[in-house]
């Protein structure tokens, strides 16, 4: 395969893992994070410490990345998830910046100049394996009782509480899992680039991840997959107009919120079953229309020609 195409595929696979996590947090649990790049940074640096300094195998580094990111997110969740949503947003905003500042000033890990020489363990194959694991885990989670509880919290927190759902616990669960995903993505990114720098995990990165989730559609895993692939490839194709990319994204995000808040695929999943169901419905609709036309002809001028609601 062309090395360039392979590179973009790998990047979109890495982005996908982070996006999947954020999709759970924003799309299913209704929490908005400005600091997910911070969790990626934590993952990237923890994994690099494991493989480069401690000489541990790559999968241990990935596991450590997930664990450390999840642990930090648990601390943030403890402090903010019992409060109103704004507090969580502001805390993640502060957290993302703080992680970057801490790493900038931590000379032991390269500081602001970055940290080179990370072993190039990331391959297309292990990205793909982790992507598949990530999607399967998430799809099963959102279809489980826990996933439905998260959706209930997103839709109407008070009603969910009244129905006996421990809303704090489910928000926390979504946050910790999504931070673990971001940590894994960071670990993969570090071992793909073989060089990490705090600047790579700035707020722009966090907002880009969120944009992908919104484009793909809140509450749709297949939307997130589609979004991650398309929005990683698109900038490569449109290199010439790259500086206008984020201008357009910004406008598009507002447009989506005003016009189609559920995004490209919101609430709709692309599975073999849903595709078949879609075509079956289309056939049925056509059959009904044909039937109605026949009826209309029979009782011309009779009832309102509109099909049933």
């Amino acid at each position: 395969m062309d090395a360039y195409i392979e590179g973009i595929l790998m990047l979109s696979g890495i982005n996908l893992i982070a996006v999947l996590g954020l999709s759970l947090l924003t799309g299913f649990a209704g929490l908005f994070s400005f600091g997910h790049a911070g969790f990626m940074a934590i993952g990237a640096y923890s994994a690099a410490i494991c493989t480069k300094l401690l000489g541990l195998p790559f999968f241990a580094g990935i596991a450590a990345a997930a664990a450390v990111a999840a642990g930090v997110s648990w601390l943030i969740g403890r402090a903010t998830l019992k409060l109103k949503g704004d507090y969580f947003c502001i805390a993640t905003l502060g957290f993302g910046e703080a992680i970057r500042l801490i790493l900038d000033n931590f000379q032991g890990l390269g500081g602001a100049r970055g940290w080179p020489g990370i072993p190039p363990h990331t391959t297309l194959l292990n990205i793909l394996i982790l992507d598949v694991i990530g999607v399967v885990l998430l799809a099963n989670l959102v279809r489980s009782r826990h996933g439905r509880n998260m959706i209930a919290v997103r839709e109407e927190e008070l009603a969910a509480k009244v129905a006996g759902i421990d809303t704090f616990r489910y928000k926390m669960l979504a946050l910790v899992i999504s931070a673990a995903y971001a940590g894994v993505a960071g670990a993969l990114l570090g071992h793909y680039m073989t060089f990490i720098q705090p600047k790579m995990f700035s707020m722009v990165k966090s907002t880009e991840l969120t944009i992908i989730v919104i484009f793909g559609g809140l509450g749709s895993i297949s939307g997130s997959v589609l979004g991650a692939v398309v929005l990683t490839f698109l900038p490569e194709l449109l290199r010439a107009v790259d500086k206008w990319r984020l201008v357009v994204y910004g406008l598009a995000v507002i447009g989506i919120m005003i016009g189609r808040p559920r995004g490209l695929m919101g609430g709709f999943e692309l599975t073999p079953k849903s595709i078949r169901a879609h075509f079956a419905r289309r056939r049925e609709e056509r059959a009904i229309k044909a039937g109605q036309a026949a009826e209309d002809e029979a009782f011309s001028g009779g009832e309102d020609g509109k099909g049933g609601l």
Partner: protein
Amino acid sequence: MAQFLQQMVNGLSIGSVYALMAVGYSLVYSIMNFSNFAHGGVIMFGAYFGFFAMTLLKLPFVASFALAFVGTSVLAVVIERVAYKPLRERSAPFLYFIISAMGASIFLENIIIATIGPTFRTYPDVFGRSSISLGSVSIGRLDLIMFVISAVCLTGLVLFIDKTKMGRAIQASAYNMKAAALMGVNTDRVVMIVFALGGLLAGIAGVFFGMKYTVYPQIGNITTKSFVAAVFGGLGSLPGAVLGSVLLGIIETLVAGYLSSQFRDLIAFVILIGVLVFRPTGIMGKTTEDKA
């Protein structure tokens, strides 16, 4: 002791500009009940408006200053009309407002990068580098002017909110938007006025930040600190926002002066976490559900 006093003076001056930003942000929060993350973009535009008024149009400082805050007022209202009003009208969930705000913020920052470019620019030197000494403490002229104008603006805002009919309408809407509308308050106009006021203060803050540091597209990120200051003082409370900002400004300068300037930006986050863990309502807030 002299050094401590000096740090206090510097902190007070930077804190007063934080207060301008935090008050604009808190004002919108108290009415709309969501964090307007596009506020930073408006501040950045203020800095650019002022800069180009002085360099391209060669206007005197006062005229440039006025142009900047009128411009940001209009900009803030336009953002509200485009990005929030449609959501307001169909009472969309809180999450959509925040996402829309993020979209507006990305747009504002990147339209500047795409058109004007990401370069850092320095304001022409208006007030000179001279300073006024009071005993052992010396105050930069810019710092003094920043402090005085901020104090005047904040006093003016308090008077406006306390004494005028519109101000009372804002208070009523902050307390309960629906009930205020039922009592004959034109809440749509209240929202517009609140955004205009927030934009005005943001424009002033933008010009000051541009003069004190430099002008660049990411200058709006400094609002992160005003969010922290607003939480510190009590989210949605105006006196809280002012107090939180001034304290944050002083703490930051003290940390930069006595510990290390690298910790200056970090201390805001440490304060944020501390406040969220021990007293999420902030200094002045009553409960986390309460509003101004």
